[in-house]
């Protein structure tokens, strides 16, 4: 409690770059900072620099809709994201920073028999791995979300059931970034904001030099944690990626008194809805199908997301939409991440997250730190190596009723 009167700096002011670090992490988002945090915490590796082009959390980490869940379709995915949620559960205490994680429950609505099939399958795969996830029906949905129009005879998409995932919920995304940054900083990691990697040199299968706008450095290991920009960073060292970059958009209303205590996702309507602790309704939709690096939103998104939200919550028709924004997503062909070593010996990636990256931040940090420290790929991330696309062994999170959040 006393901490709230003590105004200590969260992280040190930026000094000059050193000529060399054991590990250089490109990208000061949730993944980069988590990797830095676990490098010093789990392995005592403190000669670490996080290079962030703008300010920490300025990319996807600060633009996502803060939803956490682990009810994935593939056993590999479910196991991996479950480990992430478990780390998140204790992360606030560990960082001594309240990440405002509310495990309020996550409902993925099903409007067709086909969707019910997908939900049943996910629930069973999850249950077998000890993940709390089950199919529920309109009565229970109504109890969990009494303000939602569950049995509307005029509904375009009647609600047949839902996949209910009680441990899912929302967490304060910025707090995750700041908490990890503080933790990493106190462990000796240097966080360099306004530091852009402009090119890299590669020889003998290793990255040898990193040229930034603030000077050239070298590193024992380099991690690329740049999400939507990961292709561009990989291009610098000649590592191809099976990734396309797209925008994903979100918006909030002005705050209103609590109406909704769970996260609602409808894959058929391409909308996900939660109400923040501040009272804002926070809504997102699908990625735009075309590739782009331009983080500008579309009117079409605002029109579709409001129309679909109002089908579920007609009482929001006069609630005011306050702000919308767009972020970049790095989409992989199978909707599973690309994680770990590349053909360049000391260059590792965390990419291909699509819309799931934020959910994985702690486990990505922990496993990449382990990879760097031990030179061994942890079992949890072995299925996600980029090699799978050369061998055509995908880990497909795609389903006919694919869900983003």
């Amino acid at each position, binding site marked *: 409690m006393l901490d709230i009167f003590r105004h200590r700096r969260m992280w040190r002011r930026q000094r000059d770059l050193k000529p060399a670090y054991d590990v250089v992490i490109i990208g000061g988002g949730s993944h980069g900072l988590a990797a830095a945090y676990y490098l010093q915490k789990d392995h005592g590796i403190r000669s670490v620099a996080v290079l962030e082009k703008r300010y920490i959390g300025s990319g996807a980490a600060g633009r996502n809709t803060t939803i956490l869940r682990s009810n994935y379709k593939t056993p590999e995915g479910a196991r991996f994201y479950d480990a992430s949620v478990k780390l998140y559960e204790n992360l606030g205490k560990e960082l001594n920073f309240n990440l405002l994680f509310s495990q309020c429950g996550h409902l993925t609505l099903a409007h067709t028999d086909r969707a019910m099939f997908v939900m049943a399958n996910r629930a069973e795969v999850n249950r077998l791995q000890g993940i709390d996830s089950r199919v529920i029906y309109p009565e229970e949905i109504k109890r969990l979300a009494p303000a939602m129009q569950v049995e509307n005879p005029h509904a375009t998409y009647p609600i047949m059931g839902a996949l209910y995932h009680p441990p899912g919920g929302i967490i304060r995304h910025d707090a995750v970034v700041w908490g990890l940054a503080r933790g990493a900083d106190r462990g000796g990691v240097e966080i360099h904001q306004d530091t852009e990697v402009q090119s890299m040199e590669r020889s003998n299968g290793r990255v040898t030099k990193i040229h930034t706008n603030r000077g050239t450095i070298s590193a024992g290991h380099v991690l690329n944690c740049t999400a939507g920009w990961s292709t561009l960073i990989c291009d610098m060292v000649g590592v*191809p990626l*099976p990734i396309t970059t797209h925008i994903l958009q979100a918006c909030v209303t002005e705050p209103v008194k609590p109406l909704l205590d769970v996260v609602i996702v409808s894959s058929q309507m391409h909308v996900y809805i939660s109400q923040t602790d501040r009272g804002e309704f926070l809504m997102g939709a699908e990625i735009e199908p*075309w590739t*782009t*690096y*331009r983080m500008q939103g579309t009117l079409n998104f605002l029109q579709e997301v409001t129309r679909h939200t109002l089908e579920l919550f007609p009482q929001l028709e006069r609630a005011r939409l306050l702000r919308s924004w767009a972020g970049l997503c790095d989409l992989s*062909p199978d909707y599973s991440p690309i994680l770990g070593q590349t053909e360049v010996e000391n260059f590792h990636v965390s990419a291909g997250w699509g819309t799931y990256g934020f959910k994985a931040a702690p486990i990505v940090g922990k496993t990449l730190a382990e990879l760097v420290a031990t030179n061994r790929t942890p079992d949890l991330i072995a299925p996600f190596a980029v090699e799978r696309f*050369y061998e055509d062994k995908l880990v497909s999170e795609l389903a006919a009723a694919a869900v983003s959040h």
Partner: protein
Amino acid sequence: MSFLLTCPNCGTREVTDFGFGGEISARPTARPSLRELGEYNYFRRNVAGVQREWWFHRSGCRAWFIAERDTVTNEVLLTELPRGPGSPESVA
């Protein structure tokens, strides 16, 4: 609504009128190795800059055409109908 595209058959429409077919990539002409096949099926250049790409006028003439678009600004520099086998964009 966002940027506009000009269908070579129908004229200028909102991007929501169209389907996106992705960057143009060359389909191997000889039998590829598994690795080469993976590269063709899954790997993308994903350039930040001008990209030649396929679009489909889904709401209009339902024809495929080619656009050159700057992925950093979404500015569409040109659109044209494909010129068939032997042309630079041919994937055959």
